[in-house]
Every structure is written in C-alpha cells, then in structure tokens.
C-alpha cells in the first residue's frame, strides 16, 4: 500500500488543563475526503489547525507523505506550503483585490513571476465562474463568492492536502450550495481533503470516510453510510438526531 498523504498517530492537544484532542489516529489516503462531524467544541477545528501547525500538539505524531511534521526540527512555513486551509470566516485580505489575494502566496512563497501567477489565478477564477470578479475587492462580494475565492486562494499553491474548516457555517442557506458544489468539483478532480462540517447531506455525498468526534475523541470512524445511517454508538445517534431536528440532514 502506498504511503497515505496524512497519518495521525495518537495525537493529543490540551489548552492548559483542558484536553481538546485525545488519542486521535487516522489515515487519509490520496484522492480521498475525510469528513469530521461532531458538536461545536468537539475539537474539529483544533484538529485541522494542529495539522496545519497553527497549533502545537502535546503528544503523538503527524505525518505528511510519511514525513513527521510534528518534529521540532521541521520548519512550519515549509509544511504549510504543501497544505491549503480554508476558514469559516473566509479571511480574505480586505486591502487586496480578488486576484491579488490569490497571487500573493504563489509570488511571495513559491517565487513565481507576477505575470505567471496572474495567468494561473485567472484560469482558476474562470474554472469556478468568478472571472469577472478578479478586480473586485472582497467587501463587494457575497459571502459565498468570498468563500469560493478563499478556496481558490488555497488552491493556487497546488496543495497536497486541503483543510476545510466549517466553510459554510458563516453563510446563509442560499449561498451554501455554490460553495459546496465547488468542493464537490475539487473532489471529482481528485483533491485530497479534510473537512469539518455540519452539513450532513453534503458529508454523505463527498466523504470517503466520516469521523465522529466527541469531547476530542474519535468515537466512530467509517464509510459515510455506516456512520450517518447505521451509527453504532448511542452518542453518534443522539448527535445525528439533534442535527436532523435542526433541519441539516
């Protein structure tokens, strides 16, 4: 078997005395999407931030393409170049136009020329139907458009792995779909992804694996139909029932 893109072994993270992740072990093979579900505060976002080295783990090992990236001698900037991350709150740079947002990292981090970076950025924008927004500033865009630009910005550095942190949670329901169809498109093109989401219907469509987190532990892990329709643990069932009642399934 080939080396998985990402492998976590017994990862633990605590903020002070509060343990937010405990004994997290997963593997993410290439071209697959792993979806984390669980209540707010179950550790989904922290897990993604740990993988991106925005947070430091307290125990365990994280491997990216076999390399131990939790090793102290690893340069975090080096690792982040290989990872894309999209946030719940978009986090576009408000003082830059859409295209400037996208070319920043290719130019400054990957040493591309401005012209080359712009050509690639416009290609991506065209592919995702945002070509005419290239010169706009983020505050002129709808939430859905902003989030799609954020996704494109993270794609522009051609990441090995895309981390998507509740990317539809700040959007109103009408705008959710345009963002989700963008992610579906990426999945079809073979992007390896890790997602935290509350959209169960979407999880079912896009996920190869679903992971249910509670209080920082993985309670269940398996194929989407196993977890979402035939959950074994009572906590998973209870969570899915609550989500269902909230009208998200």
């Amino acid at each position, binding site marked *: 078997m080939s080396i998985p893109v990402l492998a976590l072994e017994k990862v633990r993270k605590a903020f002070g005395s509060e343990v937010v992740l405990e004994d997290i072990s997963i593997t993410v093979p290439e071209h697959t999407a792993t979806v984390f579900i669980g209540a707010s505060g179950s550790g989904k976002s922290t897990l993604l*931030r740990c993988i*991106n080295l*925005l947070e430091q783990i307290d125990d365990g090992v994280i491997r990216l393409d076999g390399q131990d990236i939790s090793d102290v001698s690893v340069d*975090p*900037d080096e690792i*982040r*170049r290989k*990872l*894309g*991350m999209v*946030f719940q*709150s978009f*986090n*576009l*740079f*408000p*003082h830059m136009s859409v295209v400037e947002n996208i070319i*920043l*990292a290719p130019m*400054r*981090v*990957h040493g591309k020329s401005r012209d080359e970076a712009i050509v690639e950025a416009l290609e991506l924008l065209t592919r995702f139907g945002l070509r005419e927004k290239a010169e706009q500033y*983020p*505050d*002129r*865009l709808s*939430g859905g458009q*902003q989030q799609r630009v*954020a996704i494109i*910005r*993270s794609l522009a*550095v051609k990441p090995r792995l895309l981390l998507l942190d509740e990317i539809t949670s700040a959007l109103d329901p009408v705008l959710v779909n345009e963002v989700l169809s963008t992610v579906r498109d990426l999945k079809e093109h073979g992007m390896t992804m890790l997602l935290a989401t509350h959209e169960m219907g979407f999880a079912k469509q896009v996920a190869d694996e679903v992971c249910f987190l509670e209080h920082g532990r993985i309670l269940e892990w398996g194929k989407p139909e196993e977890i979402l329709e035939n959950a074994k643990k009572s906590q998973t069932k209870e969570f899915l029932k609550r989500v269902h009642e909230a009208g998200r399934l």
Partner: protein
Amino acid sequence: MNQEVGRGSENSSDSAPYSFGGAWQPSAIEIERRIARKARSRKNALVATASSIVVLGTLLSIIITSPGWKTLSETFFKWAYGFEVLPKIILGFGANLFLTVIAATSVAFFGLILALVRTSRSPAITPFRLLATVYVDVFRGIPMLLIILLVGFGIPALRLQGVTNNVFILGIMAVIITYSAYVAEVIRSGILTVHPSQRAAARSLGLSNMQTLRYVVLPQALRRVTPPLLNDLVSLIKDTGLVSILGVTDAIRAAQIESSRSFNYTPYVMAAGIFLLVTIPLTRYTDRTLRKSIERQNAQGLA
C-alpha cells in the same frame, strides 16, 4: 430593485399603475412628502440662522462693550502694524514648516521601527522590546517642553567632541524623540487591531512571519491609523513652535522679537493666524479621512 418593488406595493391603492419598464413618476403621496420635507428643512435653516445670530451677536457685543475693549484692540489687533511685521513672521514660519517636514519623516521611520519591535514576539528581539517599552513610557510621560530644554541645554553641556551646539538641530532632535514615542503607540494600536485570523490565513498560505507583517498586517494597520496619524501631524506643526524656547527663530520667536520691541501683541495674533492657515485645512482633511475610513469599516462589517 427592491426599493422600487416596495414603492410599488405601498402605492397599490394609487390610481397610477406601476410598471417596471415605464418611466417612473412620483406618486401623489410622495410629492406631498417631498413638499413637507422641504418645508421642514427650510424651517430648520431659519432656526439655525436665528439662533446663531443671537448667540454670536450677544458674545460679540459683550466683548466690544467691555470697558477694556479699546485698549485690548489697540494692543492685539493693530492690523496696520501687524501686516508690517508679517513678512518676518512668515519667514519664521518657514522654519516651523522645515522642522515639521524633517521631523515628520524621521518620526514616521522611528515610530514604525519602535512599533514593530514592540509587537514582535521573536525571542531575539526581547531586549530591544524591553528597551522600546521603556523608551515609549518615558518619553510619552514627560512634557515635550521639558525634553526640549533637557536636550537643548543638556547635550551641549556634556561638551562631547563632535556633538553639535546648533539649537536648530537640537530642537529637531527633541521633537523627533518625543513624537516617535507618540507615533509608535498609534501604529502599534493599529497592528494590534488587525484580527488574528488574518495572520492565520497568511501563515496557512505559507507566508513567513515577516512576509505576513509586510503584505497582510502592516497595510491594514497603517490604513486604519491614518486619521490619528494626521491628527499627530497637526499637533506636530504646532509643537515645532516650542523649539523657539531654545532661540530658534520660528514664527513664535519672530513674533516675540517684534512684540518686545513695540510692546504690542499684534505679532502674536498674526503668528496664530498663520498657524491656523495651515492647521485648519489639515484638520478638515483629517476629519474627511476619518469619516471615509469609518464608512469603509462599516461596509466591511456588513459584507
């Protein structure tokens, strides 16, 4: 679009049919509202004018009818004499402007460095961060006049080789020392208001700490603190007048020389007028920048 639909439904009882394509005509109810609004704003203007006349007129008449007014106007508002000395004061004001330009550029440079050092978390910077903090605390806490006196008389008293005795240079130094501390704090507050999520986004794209600062944090921070920095510029222009205490012939010193010769205070009033000529437009401009920056931030909040 929404507005038009709203207006259409409001006037659904109106005889004029609403159509999307046709030329829009204000309805009877809207015309009535416009007339009422116009009448109200006319009344408001009338009230404002009347109250201004009453208040300002009363103040003016109190001053003019006061027993000392005649002597006061002789000593402070002797215009013919004022215009006679005006060229000398304007020449002095040139020194203020020159001081302002040199000080403002240096202060921008040192203030930025101090702010960067204070907000840096790099361990290698730690001693400098402590020094910067002490520096800012000390020089923000001492009246500028004292710093001018200490620098202006203290440094020459050291009798160090190669150190200048030029009051002009010493004066500029004192102004730069003080204002760098002020400006550093303004810029630092700007850096701190940039949301951590902006840093996280930049770092997750692989940008280094320095690149994040250079391309993401500083541009936003500086934009946000432009209005308070312009405010400091207005203060700086005025405060360059303080170096006259060292004997620099600026507008204030020039006025002082004239007035001590004639025992008439009109030169001071002329100097004040010249300062206002520069500071008022700059203040108005600052206000406009501030308003625009608030509008921009509100727009971002809505998005």
